[in-house]
Each structure stands twice: as C-alpha cells, then as structure tokens.
C-alpha cells in the first residue's frame, strides 16, 4: 500500500519508531547492565560507571557461585522440578481437556463451570496452606508437582483448541477401530502440537520461576529451589530477613566479591535458561494465547 507521506505523517512515524525503540531499550537495558556487572570485577563495580560493557572483564563471580555447594543442589532440584512437573502436568492437562471437549461427555458442562470458577475463586492462602499440611505434603518434593498438575487457564486454552478440531477426524478414526485412548494419542495429540508447545512453555516457565511453595511448605534446606536461593540473597539486601542471615554466601567468598556482584550474577544465571528456550517457542505461544483468549 503506497501512500503519500504528509509532513504530519512523517513526524508521527519518526516519533513512533523512536518511542518504541526507547521502550525496547528500557526493557533490555537492565538485563544488559546486570550482565555487564556480573562479568566485571566486583571491586571495580563498586566505583560505579558500569553500563553496557564490563570494564575489567572476569569470570570470577561465576566461578564463585558455582563453588557454592547449595547452589548445585538447588539447580538440580529446579531442573528436576521443571522437567518432571511439566511432563506430568502436560499429560494431565491433555487428558482433562480432551475429556471436557467431547460433546458426548455427560458432565461436560458442570465440570467446565467448576473449572472456570476455580480461576476466580479459591479457598484463600491460609486454608490452602492447611490443606497441604494436612495432606502431608510439607517438606516433600511432591508439593512442587502435585498442586500444579492441572491449571484452569491451561485447560481452558487447550480445550478450546480441541473444541475446534473437526469432529469428522475423530469419528473416522473411531470407525477404523481406534480405541478412545488411541484416538487421543495418535490423532488428537499429533495435530495439536502448537497448543501443546504453548502450554508446555507456560507450565515450564512457571515451574522454573516458582518459589512461593518452597517458601511456604518446604523448610528443609535440601529441598531449596534455585529461585528461593536467589530470593534469600535478595532479601538479605532489603533487610527483611535480617543481617545475620548471610549464610548462603560463605565468608570466604565475601572477601573476594561484593553482595551486589553476587546478586547480579545469580540473577543472570537464573534468567538465562528462560532466554535460551523462549525465542524458539515464540511463534507458538502467540498463536496459543490469542486462540485461547479470543474464543472465550
């Protein structure tokens, strides 16, 4: 579409591009700044003036955090949680959504309503806490997996995708003698890969980012997640936990670095896995999001 550019039009465009570039820069800059700080010598960082590039390049900060034994166990735990949690949640979500999308299922309507309601109304924090406690899930690894198996929002998105699959497809598979389970695994799942990719992204990111359940339910240090370790370091700096609680950084390390550098390094370390996965899934999740939302 060719168009004559008026003066006002050009001005508008220039400002528009400029504003958007500024916004993108404002989003990106803190990450880059932290990255630079994490790669800069900590004693040098204290003097300030680190912007986009490290001034005295070093990997010391990273070497230091890797020496921390607790970090290693919390990383493996976080990875385990993300992998196991996402796999099980996907299986559960697919099965629930598929059942809810079948029109011949008698309880379809009431169950759908119950799931939607659960998105808006819940028992509240303290009852939830007591529930988990009475189920005996406190101080177990399972508390990371079980409560998150089925998310209402994910079910809604996936169900609306299943809803619009042509019903002839499923009928013809059935005619050729496929059992209900085969219909699901051989026909429905393979053609639903975009929405499955979307949901796995959502679920895995939320598993990776979760720390509240760690904070509330698992006080044993052997069950600490990476995010929780980071959060403890964060709170040390904002005084909520109190000054006497510097135990996640050992004194040996403190002599060679500063809390600021450690925080920057940890932050980058926690963020990088997400940034690595995210660009590949971007085209799927945009589709998945709009599909779930517009169809409501």
């Amino acid at each position, binding site marked *: 579409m060719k168009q004559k550019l*008026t003066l*006002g*039009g050009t001005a*508008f*465009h220039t400002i*528009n*591009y400029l*504003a*958007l*570039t500024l*916004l*993108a820069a*404002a*989003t*990106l*800059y*803190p*990450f880059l*700044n*932290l990255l630079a700080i994490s790669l800069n010598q900590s004693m040098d960082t*204290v003097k300030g*003036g*680190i912007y986009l590039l490290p001034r005295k390049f070093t990997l010391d900060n990273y070497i230091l955090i890797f020496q921390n034994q607790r970090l290693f166990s919390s990383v493996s735990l976080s990875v385990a949680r993300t992998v196991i949690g996402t796999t099980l949640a996907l299986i559960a979500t697919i099965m629930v959504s598929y059942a809810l999308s079948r029109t011949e299922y008698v309880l379809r309507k009431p169950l759908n*309503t119950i799931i*939607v*309601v659960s998105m*808006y*109304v819940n*028992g*509240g*924090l*303290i009852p939830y806490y*007591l529930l988990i406690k009475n189920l005996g899930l406190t101080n177990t690894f399972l508390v990371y997996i079980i409560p998150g198996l089925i998310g209402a929002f994910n079910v809604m998105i996936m169900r609306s995708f299943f809803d619009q699959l042509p019903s002839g497809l499923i009928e013809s598979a059935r005619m050729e003698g496929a059992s209900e389970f085969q219909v699901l695994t051989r026909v429905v799942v393979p053609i639903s890969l975009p929405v499955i990719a979307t949901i796995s992204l959502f679920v895995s*990111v939320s598993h*990776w*980012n*979760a*720390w509240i359940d760690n904070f*509330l339910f698992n006080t044993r240090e052997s069950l600490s997640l990476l995010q929780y370790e*980071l*959060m403890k370091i*964060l*709170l040390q700096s*904002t*005084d*909520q936990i109190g000054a006497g609680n510097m135990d996640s950084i050992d004194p040996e390390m403190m002599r060679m670095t500063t809390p*600021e550098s450690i*925080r920057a390094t*940890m*932050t980058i370390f*926690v*963020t990088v896995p*997400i940034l690595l996965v*995210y*660009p590949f899934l971007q085209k799927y999740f*945009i589709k998945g*999001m709009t599909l779930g*939302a*517009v169809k*409501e």
Partner: protein
Amino acid sequence: MAFQKYSIPKGIFGSPFVGFDQFAELFKDDQFYNALRNTLAMSVMGLVSGFVCAIVLALLLNEVRLTLFKRTVQTIVYIPHFVSWVVISNIMIFVLSPDYGPFNELLKYLGLIEEPIYFLSKEKWFWIIHTFAGLWKELGWSTIIYLAVLSGVNPELYEAADVDGAGRFKKMIYISFPSLLPTATMLLILAVGHLISTGYESQMLLGNSLVIEYSKVLDLYALDYALKLGDYSYGVAISMFKSMVSIILVLGVNQLAKRLGQSHVL
C-alpha cells in the same frame, strides 16, 4: 474454621466454636484496613496503568510497517513476562539503587536531582514503584491479544478512510481504537474480579520493613497471623473475607457484562 478458635492439636472437630468473633476482631483491627487499602490501591493502579499502556502500545506497534523492527520490539518487550518476580525485584533494586543505580544516574544526568534518592526506602514511592515494576513486566505480554484483534480488522475500513482523506493518526483514532474496545471491555470486566487478589509475591519481594505500612497486602497480613503467630483461624477469616469479596465482584461484573451485551464467562 473461620468460625472457630482453631488449634492444631485439637483439629477442626475439637476446636471451640466462636461464631463471628474472628470477623469482629478483624473489622476492629487497624492493620486490616491498612492492608485492605494497600491491596485495593495497588490493584487499581496496576489495572488502570496496565490497560491504558497496553492499548497505546498495541496501537503504536500496529502502525509500524517494518516487519523486522516490529518483531524485534515485540520479542524484547515480551521477555520480562517470563522472568520471575524474584528476578524482577532484583532488577528493580538495581535500577533504583542509590549507589550508581541507572535511574538515579539518569536523574542526576538530567540535572533533576543532586543527591541520589533511595527510592525503595520511601513509603510514598512504594505504590508507584510497584505499579511501574508490574507494568514493566507485563506490558508487552498484554499487547498480544490487542495486536491479534487489530490484525483482524477489515482492511476495507482503512481503504475507505484513505479515500476520504484520513491520515495515519486519524485512522488510528477512528478505526483501530474503536475496534479494540469490545475486547478491552471484556478483559477489563474479567480483571475487576481479581481486584482484591493482587497476589503477594511482588509486594513481599519489593517491600521491606521501612515501607511495610504501604506494602503489606491482605495475603501477607493473613500469612503473618497464621504462620508467625500461629493464629490460623484469624488467617482463614481474612482469606474468607477476600474470597467473599471476589465472588461478589465476579458475579457482579458478570451480570453487568451480560446486560451490556458483552460475552460473559459463567
């Protein structure tokens, strides 16, 4: 449980029944009103700023014709959505830090301040910082749906406007913006149901004891009572109050939505 004086060893059947005592105590507590005020203030600020900015950003992005530029901006502004609040608050603390934090540096460079300000220790700033952090995190993400709607607008409308001599800006105001309104109304209605439950992660992480008067929300208040003081019934009463309000809000806006002829959820 909210109607009992619950104690763990006695359990739910052994604890004495006290009727509405917990609620009576709740409504007498100044701290409760404080937490309620914080919750509502931060929700409303987040809601309004989130909506306005997302719509503006979607409109601006929609005007961009260079696909590569548009894609890059989109990719970048979606990133913070995938990062946890722990990381976001870490970043915020860095950005707002009085020791060479970028924001203070920027203000100094522009000559607006002489001495760095320690923003996170100022009570008055907390709501604003919180809103800003939330905006920074979710702004890009919330444009996705608007952009999808905009891409579905009938191109004939724009062509007709061209013929009638409308410029870019006019088209944006008179065609793009109105076509977003139905979706925006629906999302707004859905969001109102969540008004009283802002979540508490962000407040807990960004807040500190200096600004606690302004950062404590209902959930944190309940958590304090239940976990630190062991008064579970009181915590449950707070949670129940919250749930009641959100049920009323959801049902209310759902009715309103039906009457306005918008799509509804229940």
